[in-house]
């Protein structure tokens, strides 16, 4: 599905938190996972800026590991603040999606 970018904007950060919450991972792998999920226009640069923001807001723990090729890779894992933020995201998502579903079903 094309042109999801605008709609995704507010939720992508939560998606990235969820993926990191599953296991410690790095930018390229997160991008691929989002692409496989069906978010085809998400590029690594987008994920990268989200990761920078998460790091700035102290929601993730960053470890540098050497990679086979090129410079070392940054791996991200959630810390306690990050897990809290993730729980908040799902609560908000639940709220928004239930309201929108309700609207669609005409139960205004």
């Amino acid at each position, binding site marked *: 599905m094309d042109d999801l970018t605008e709609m995704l904007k507010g939720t992508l950060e939560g998606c990235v938190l969820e993926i990191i919450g599953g296991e410690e991972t790095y930018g390229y792998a997160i991008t691929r996972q989002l692409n496989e999920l069906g978010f085809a226009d998400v590029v*690594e*640069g987008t994920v990268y800026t989200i990761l920078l923001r998460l790091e700035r807001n102290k929601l993730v723990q960053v470890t540098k590991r050497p990679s086979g090729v*090129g410079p070392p890779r940054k791996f991200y894992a959630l810390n306690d603040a990050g897990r809290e933020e993730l729980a908040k995201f799902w609560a908000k998502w639940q709220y928004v999606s239930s309201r929108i579903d309700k609207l669609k079903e005409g139960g205004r």
Partner: protein
Amino acid sequence: MNFWETVTGSDLTRDWQAFEARAEALPDDYRAAWEQIKGHLHPHGDFTGRNLMPILDAALGLLEETAADGQSVHEVLGDDIRGFCAALAGGEGARTYRDRWREQLNRNVARKLSRLGG
């Protein structure tokens, strides 16, 4: 940063040279993207541009990492290099020198108006 560097900006010149040397080593399409990134980040700079140095370093790091992965620059940055730079510099609402000028202008106009009893 010592006093001499603060006054002369010699540390900045040195950093720029280091950046350009790293950019030289990138593939052609990445180098073109690097030029664009510099252009889009420039308005977010402060007077000397010193605040941009860590941001440029991070952007260049991403380019190096992804080039080594063998991805195309389009796969990495997509079509919206400008948006990428705005997000790097601290999000959509990042203050640029234009914002600061606009603010100053508005303030001055408001002051003049109030003096006129407008």
